[in-house]
């Protein structure tokens, strides 16, 4: 039996003294009734034949001991102590003043307490018996790999021939749009040609001239596009700038680019 579920509920009558019951009690999860039950067991009698007077004495001794040790007892313990002291005194006194007040006879009160202890005792035994049973996932195990019921989908499927055709055509169209056709190779304006072109028109670039006016115009529809002419011309002009033949400027990001040939006798390195 594993310890996990096996609280030590058996207060062994031979061994348990009040002090031990006291310690158990101060675990903090039991009440005065539990203490009374523990004490009652030390009497080694059937709970029905319990001496309530004796039990009251035991309990009062327990409370006394607790106070001597400076343990702060919860209010319930003290209420129980005073009630038991009262019950004990009534049990011991001869019943001379019968009928006085509306209180039940002390014997009935004592029997009621014994009954309550019995009830609690029954529950504690129930716990023990329950814990002694084979428990699921501790002692007994169900199928480790149950076969979940398979839900077989209905045989009926909602798909028409039209949908099938439509699905086919749709993706063939998509396929067509995606297709790469090597016949449409883009012609580019070669960098070499752009450089030659720039050198050729250089004499006309005495003033700042916008790039798109410098780049050649496409003539052949099969030839390079305007964008290609412009891009290649720009690249070539940058090379000429590096060589010191041209200047290029742009006033702001994305603004027009201007080209101008560098004046003769004004080598870059001599500019003050």
């Amino acid at each position: 039996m594993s310890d996990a579920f096996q609280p030590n509920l058996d207060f062994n009558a031979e061994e348990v003294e009040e002090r031990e019951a006291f310690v158990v009690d101060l675990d903090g999860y039991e009440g005065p009734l539990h203490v009374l039950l523990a004490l009652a067991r030390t009497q080694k009698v059937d709970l029905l034949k319990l001496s309530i007077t004796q039990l009251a004495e035991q309990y009062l001794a327990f409370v006394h001991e607790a106070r001597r040790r400076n343990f702060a007892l919860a209010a319930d313990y003290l209420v129980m102590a005073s009630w038991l002291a009262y019950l004990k005194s009534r049990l011991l006194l001869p019943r001379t003043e019968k009928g006085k007040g509306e209180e039940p006879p002390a014997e009935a009160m004592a029997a009621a307490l014994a009954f309550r202890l019995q009830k609690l005792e029954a529950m504690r035994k129930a716990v023990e018996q329950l814990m002694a049973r084979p428990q699921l996932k501790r002692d007994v195990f169900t199928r480790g790999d149950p076969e979940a019921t398979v839900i077989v989908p209905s045989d009926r499927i909602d798909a028409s021939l039209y949908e099938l055709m439509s699905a086919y055509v749709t993706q063939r169209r998509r396929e067509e749009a995606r297709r790469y056709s090597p016949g449409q190779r883009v012609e580019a304006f070669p960098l070499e040609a752009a450089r030659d072109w720039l050198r050729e028109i250089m004499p006309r670039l005495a003033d700042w001239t916008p790039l798109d006016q410098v780049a050649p115009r496409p003539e052949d529809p099969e030839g390079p596009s305007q964008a290609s002419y412009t891009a290649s011309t720009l690249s070539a002009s940058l090379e000429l700038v590096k060589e010191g033949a041209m200047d290029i400027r742009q006033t702001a990001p994305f603004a027009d680019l201007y080209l101008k040939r560098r004046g003769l006798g004004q080598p870059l390195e001599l500019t003050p």
Partner: protein
Amino acid sequence: MSDPSFQPDEAEIERRVEALLFAAAGPLSAAEIGARLPEGADVGRALSGLRARYEGRGVELDCVADRWRFRTAADLAFMMSQEREEPRRLSKAALETLAIIAYHQPVTRAEIESVRGVSLSKGTLDLLLEMGFVRLRGRRRTAGRPVTYGTADRFLEHFGLASLYDLPGVQEMKAAGLLDLSAPVGFELPDPSRATGADEEEAPLLDEDSPEFAQDFVGEER
């Protein structure tokens, strides 16, 4: 698919019940089993046949919470170290509370506290509810309409009990009056834990008496 004209004999019915119970992820009621068998199949007979067949084997047929399941034999627990789950530790207070609920249900919080003589700490009932051992059953028809608690099927499944009648010692306790929630006449034990403890004469709860119970809690029942 099965041939509908085929009329299975007893042995075949037993085979089928065996297959269903083996494959099931949880206990099955006789009605659930019957729904999957041909009309007129004697489920009870098949179940008792199976129970006898598996008696003493490594796997046994068990009735829990009125449902049937196969489980490993209790004496082989020591072998099952790999399958064992770390049990959730229940405190003494929680165990006692569980026992009180099991034996006295439907029972209110105040009644649980009265048996134990201590007030219930907040977490105790929550834990039992969360573990699925305890469920809300309804409301008592008394002032304040306190909620009553009872055990859930999972409690019976966990402890391998066919029904609440099979709780250990329940008949003896009942005979001795120990499960009676009303206190003996003139019983005036001080009870600091029970602020509202004066009203002992609560009517037993009848489900039909409290339609809002059905609304509130029936969804929690399995």
